[in-house]
């Protein structure tokens, strides 16, 4: 922590008077509020020309919101954006591009059936007599490729390129538009280690040519390798700047997660001996390459919260799908209590006592343009109070929706309001209410407090704890390490589809957990 120069008092003036050269990008006290949430508060960021500046923070810390602000995708509520010492106001990404800011998205936005040349010029084509001037385009792309050593062949189809090449095409795209400041959003998430090395080589070239690179990541080791300076974001605000040469990964992790104790604190164990859910060698194929979920063994007992930690995209979502019957297993078995439910449909699993809080409530948990009472019975449409023979019992469904709204503090005009009218927290409370109302034996909760404001978060934690005390088995997937450590009785770490470590949540620190999650730390079951 000592190496971290806290940004507390008066920040150094960045308009050139003090340092001589103005900062390429300077953000001063940027605050961005969304209804019910403050996504960014008093963000300070100073990026110099010719440096790679990393922004690190946990998932949900506000990194992407900040970058969207800088890229003109939305306007900050407070604060200033300065480029080269001059204040700018972006109305749209087009303004940001015109000002020399380029964004390389984590997910590539390329047309597969176009050549590299066509993809690069798409949207800002050089024209001669109303037609695409290929010669001019080729000349400029060759110049860019040469100058920054991107090694692009303008005439190959993008569909034939690998991930690393595609990323270079994306970089060429923003350079082609004259970007002097590049934002790379989690650029290494999709790369294998060798490609990461190549990317870092490219970044060095960009730096040498005097460009500023903003590098967003939560992989601390990579950040320390590539960055010249680091800004750490936690809970929507900058907690400080760090020098990668003098700061250890552990210190960075401490800055990222904060030193305060986890809020959802542990309570006395309610774990009983009866297993509710047992997974044996559960494997989900990806269709090509290594399996998405690789031979996972897992037991959840009554009254036990089994947490699964992991960097997103390491197979947690697929594991949830496999447990819920939404995705076929390549091999392995799933047992609920005594029954082998491997081949059961999702509906049969739900009827047998599985509740589900999906990761993306808009995609999987709600019918947004349906009234609340229909959302109340979603997933429970075959059982009372929703069903009466083959019919839907609208009266009882409405009454029960009103009950859930009362008991779970869902704030809405009434059971007939449309789900879309509710805030995220109220939607989530309705989902939790309806899942709890069916008294499931097992609850699969994926990111139960994601996108929910602080008040609702505390309520949801309490509900989960109460359910656990009553003997429900809970599988908890979360990106919030405090949540995982605070709620779990057993904590597994998932990396590349495998459960790589089992830790004791009472003893593990977020930093240690982070180490397991990124693969920096390996151990065979510390608990």
């Amino acid at each position, binding site marked *: 922590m000592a190496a971290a120069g806290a940004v507390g008092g008066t920040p150094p003036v960045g308009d050139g008077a003090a340092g001589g050269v103005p900062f390429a990008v300077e953000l001063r006290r940027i605050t961005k509020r969304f209804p*019910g949430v403050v996504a960014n508060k008093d963000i300070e960021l100073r990026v110099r020309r010719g440096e790679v500046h990393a922004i690190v923070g946990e998932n949900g810390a506000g990194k992407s919101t900040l970058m969207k602000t800088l890229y003109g995708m939305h306007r900050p509520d407070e604060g200033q954006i300065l480029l080269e010492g001059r204040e700018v106001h972006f109305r749209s990404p087009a303004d940001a591009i015109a000002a020399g800011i380029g964004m390389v*998205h984590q*997910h590539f936005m390329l047309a597969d059936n176009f050549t590299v040349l066509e993809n690069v010029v798409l949207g800002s084509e050089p024209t001669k007599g109303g037609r695409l001037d290929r010669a001019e385009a080729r000349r400029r792309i060759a110049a860019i490729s040469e100058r920054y050593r991107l090694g692009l062949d303008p005439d190959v189809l993008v569909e034939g390129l690998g991930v690393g090449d595609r990323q270079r095409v994306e970089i060429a795209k923003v350079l082609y538009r004259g970007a002097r400041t590049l934002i790379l959003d989690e650029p290494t998430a999709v790369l294998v280690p060798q490609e990461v090395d190549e990317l870092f080589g490219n970044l060095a070239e960009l730096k040498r040519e005097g460009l500023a690179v903003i590098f967003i990541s939560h992989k601390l080791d990579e950040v320390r390798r590539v960055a010249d300076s680091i800004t750490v974001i936690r809970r929507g605000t900058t907690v400080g700047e760090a020098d990668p040469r003098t700061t250890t990964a552990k210190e960075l992790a401490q800055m990222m997660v904060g030193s305060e104790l986890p809020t959802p604190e542990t309570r006395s164990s309610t774990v009983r001996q009866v297993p509710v859910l047992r997974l044996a060698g559960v494997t989900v194929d990806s269709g090509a390459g290594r399996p998405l979920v690789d031979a996972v063994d897992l037991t959840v007992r009554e009254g036990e919260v089994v947490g699964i930690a992991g960097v997103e995209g390491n197979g947690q979502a697929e594991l949830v799908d496999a447990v819920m019957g939404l995705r076929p297993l390549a091999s392995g078995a799933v047992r609920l209590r005594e029954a082998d439910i491997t081949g059961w449909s999702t509906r049969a699993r739900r009827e047998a006592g599985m509740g589900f809080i999906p990761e993306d409530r808009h995609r999987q948990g709600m019918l947004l343009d349906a009234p609340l009472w229909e959302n109340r019975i979603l997933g429970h*449409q075959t059982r009372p109070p929703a069903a009466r023979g083959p019919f839907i019992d609208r009266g009882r469904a409405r009454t029960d929706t009103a009950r859930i709204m009362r008991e779970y503090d869902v704030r809405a005009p009434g059971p007939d309001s449309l789900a879309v009218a509710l805030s995220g927290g109220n939607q989530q409370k309705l989902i939790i209410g309806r899942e709890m109302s069916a008294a499931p034996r097992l609850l699969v909760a994926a990111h139960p407090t994601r996108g929910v*404001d602080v008040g609702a978060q505390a309520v949801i934690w309490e509900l989960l704890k109460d359910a656990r005390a009553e003997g429900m088995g809970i599988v908890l997937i979360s990106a919030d390490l405090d949540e995982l450590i605070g709620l779990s009785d057993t904590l597994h770490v998932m990396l590349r589809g495998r459960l790589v470590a089992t830790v004791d949540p009472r003893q593990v620190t977020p930093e240690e957990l982070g180490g397991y999650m990124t693969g920096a730390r390996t151990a065979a079951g510390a608990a």
Partner: protein
Amino acid sequence: MNRLRRTGLALLGPVLAVLVALVISGLVIALIGQDPLRALQVMVDLGDAPSQQVQSIVVILNRAVPLFLAGLAVSIAFRMGLFNIGVEGQYRMATVVSAAVGAAVVLPGPLHVLLVIVVAMVVGAFWAGIVGVLKVTRGVSEVISSIMLNFIALGLASFLLTGPLRGSAEGASIITTAPLPESAWFPGLNGVLGAFGLAEPRTELFGFLVVAVVIGVVISVLVQRTRFGFDLRATGMSASAATASGVDARRMVVTTMLLSGAVAGLVGLPDLLGDAHSFGTEFTAGLGFLGIAVALLGRNNVLGVALAALLFAFLDRAALPLQFADIPASVVTIIQGTIVLAVVVANEVVRRLTLRSAERAGAAATGAPPDPGADGGGPGGGPGPDSGPDGGHRVRTGVPGTPEGARA
């Protein structure tokens, strides 16, 4: 938001669309050098004498019955997000086969009619079922396969008509199947009209009207009140959410296509059982395509589809009087076409109004803003199944000012 207000909003779209369509059509009529007001006058003039008026109404109803059934068939599929363009082929196949089967057997009255109806439904369901099976097993878009199957159906129906199922004499100018025996005729409703003291029209009012009303009520209850209907609507609103709730999406696709096809199979029957008594080269065509327009205008609601069918039938009837008044009958087609275009736009406008009004109500109740479209943290989600075929059904198109990526 109270129900009255919601109903008002639901009606607003189609009404707006019809008005806009009338204005545009009026402009077109003026452009071709005719008087739009006179055209309108001709269209709404049902005749002077009471008998003429009753006759006009019977013509409208007789036209509305098959349009309603076609619209209903399309709307069932729409409700779960499937675009069944194949109603045309489904009813052609169903009519030719059921006409031939009906002509080939002799049964007591009601049974004979029932047999024809059942055969038509089975054939229609089978033809639509192919689309469903192709979609779930091979991933073929139902839009493509149902269009393709239309061509196959038309060709196959022609082949059957001119070949194995031909009933008319060799060399006759109009080729038909063998005529249905009288036991398979559906009794008309003119007696009922007489009982109300109305003048006897020249044309028989289709008794199939009653069947259509029953089917409408059954479908309405099925979709709105049953578990099956809930699964169907849930899949239409969000396939991913329905799947997570335990709906077997593949089975739903096949079942819904079967249901839609079964109703589509009935489209040709009012005419077959009530008037023509045989399927032939002159048999009413194009009902399946009109059904798509009717379903759109009726917003996939059974009552709405009925009203839309009546409106389209009313416009169709006007084609003849317009010609008598030296106004091109294509005016009707122009109006129908502009209605369809306008209704798509109007539905979208109303959808946004509804959303805003719902949000206001929600905010008023909670003080917390709604959360209608926060993405999953980045552009990885891609376009979901949100773009409904009717363009006025889904909510997740990004509304400006939503907390997109609020937690990213």
